[in-house]
C-alpha cells in the first residue's frame, strides 16, 4: 500500500492522470462524461443532483465531495441535495426489502 489511508482528497485533482496509462480510452471517457453532464433535456442542476444521489449509492467519497460543490454551483440548495440522497437511500432500502419476496417464496417452498 502506497499510503496509510485509502482515500486522499488531493487525489481527485489527479483524475485526469488516468490518461497517462491509457490515453485513447481516457479521452473518450472524459469527452463522453462532459457531454453527459452538459445541459440537455435535463438541466445541469438536475444532473448534478442525480450524480450526487448516485455518488452516495456507490459510496464514492471523491464523487460526494465533487458533486456537493457542483450542486451548489448549479444552483441547488441543501434541501434539494438532502432530498436527492433520500431518493438514493429509499431505492437502496427498497431494493433490499423487495428481495425479501424471493426469501418468502423460497421459505414457502422448503417449509411445511
Amino acid at each position, binding site marked *: 500500500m502506497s499510503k496509510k489511508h485509502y482515500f486522499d482528497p488531493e487525489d481527485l485533482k489527479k483524475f485526469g492522470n488516468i490518461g497517462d496509462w491509457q490515453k485513447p480510452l481516457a479521452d473518450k471517457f472524459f469527452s463522453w462524461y462532459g457531454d453527459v453532464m452538459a445541459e440537455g433535456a435535463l438541466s445541469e442542476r438536475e444532473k448534478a443532483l442525480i450524480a450526487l444521489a448516485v455518488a452516495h449509492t456507490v459510496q464514492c467519497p471523491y464523487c460526494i465531495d465533487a458533486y456537493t460543490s457542483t450542486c*451548489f*454551483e*448549479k*444552483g441547488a*440548495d*441543501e434541501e434539494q441535495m438532502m432530498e436527492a440522497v433520500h431518493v438514493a437511500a429509499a431505492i437502496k432500502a427498497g431494493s433490499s426489502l423487495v428481495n425479501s419476496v424471493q426469501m418468502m417464496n423460497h421459505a414457502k417452498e422448503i417449509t411445511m
Partner: protein
Amino acid sequence: MSIHQKIKSLAARHSALADTFFQLKVLNGKELTDARFPAFRESIKQAGFTDGTIRPTRIEIFQMNVGKLCNQTCAHCHVDAGPDRKAENMTRETFELCLDVLARCDIPTVDITGGAPEMNPNFRWFVEECRKLGKHIIDRCNLTIIVANKKYHDLPDFFAENKVEVVSSLPHYSALRTDAQRGDGVFEDSIKALQMLNAVGYAQDGTDLKLNLVYNPTGTFLPGHQASLEADFKRQLKRKFDIDFNHLYAITNMPISRFLDYLLEGGHYESYMQSLLDSFNPGAVAGVMCRNTISVSYEGDLYDCDFNQMLDLKVAGPKTHLRDFDFSALEQRDIVLNQHCYGCTAGAGSSCGGQVA
C-alpha cells in the same frame, strides 16, 4: 421580521483587512504570484491584449457608489458596508458635481449603488434630476430596505414613476442559502419587497419596468451558467411566491474585502484563487465592464470599477476627481489591473450586468 446580522463590518471589527493596503498585499503575495498565480497582466496577453493593458471601448455607464451605509452586513460584501458606516456618504455638493458631468457628457446610463443607496438623503432628488436629463437610471437595491422602515415603503412607487431599473441581490430562492450570506430574516423581507415591486408593475407584461436579480454564490464556489440559473429561479420564485423578474445576473465573488476575509478565515483563499485561474477565459476579457464604465466614489474620486474603488486604485492619469472630469482623456486611459481582476474573467466572465462571454 427584522434582520439579524451575523457579522460586523471589517471597519467595526478593526480588522487588518479594513486597510486596502493589506488587501493588496494578500492579493500580490510574492510567494503565490510567482509560483502559482501569474500576474493578471501576463494572462491577458494570451487574450489578444498583447501589451498587457486593457483600454475602454466607450464610457456608457456612470456608476456611482453613493455611500457605505447599509441596513445589512452581508458576508461577501466587497464594499464593507453596514449600519455602522454612517460617515461615508455622498454629499449634496458631490451629487451636484455628478449632475454637471452627466449634463455635459453623452453617458446614457446612471448606475447607483452603495451600501443601500436609498439611505442617502439626496437619493430621490438626484434620481429625479437624472430623469430630467433623460438618463437611464439603475438602482442597485438590496430589497430589504423597502420594508425596513415606513419612510422607504413607497420606494416601489418612486422607482416606477421615474422608470428606474431595479437590480436586486437575491442569492437564492431558498431562505437558508440567502440568509447564510445576507443575514437572518433577509429572505423573508426580500420576498415581500419583490412582491411589492411586482405589484406596481415591475417585470409585468405591458410595462417597461425592469426588475433584474443578482445571483452571487453563497460559498467558495463559482457561479454556474446564468441562463440555467435564471430558468430555475424563474420557475421556483413563481411557484413558491408568485414572483416575476426579467433577468438574473450571475456575478462571481471578488477576492476582496469581506469575501477575502471569509476566504482567509476558512483557509480557502488559495483554492479560490486557483479556481479563478483554472477557469480563466481569454474570451471573457474583451467584455469586462471596466471598458464601458466609470466608477465614482462617495467622495467624487474616479475609478475603473467598483472593485478598484474598494481597493482604492484610482484611474490612471493626473485627473482622478469629478472636478476634473475629462471624458475623452478617460476614454484613452489604461485600466488599472490587479490580481482580483481574475474574478471578472473566470468561466463565462462576470460584470455588474452578469456574465459576459
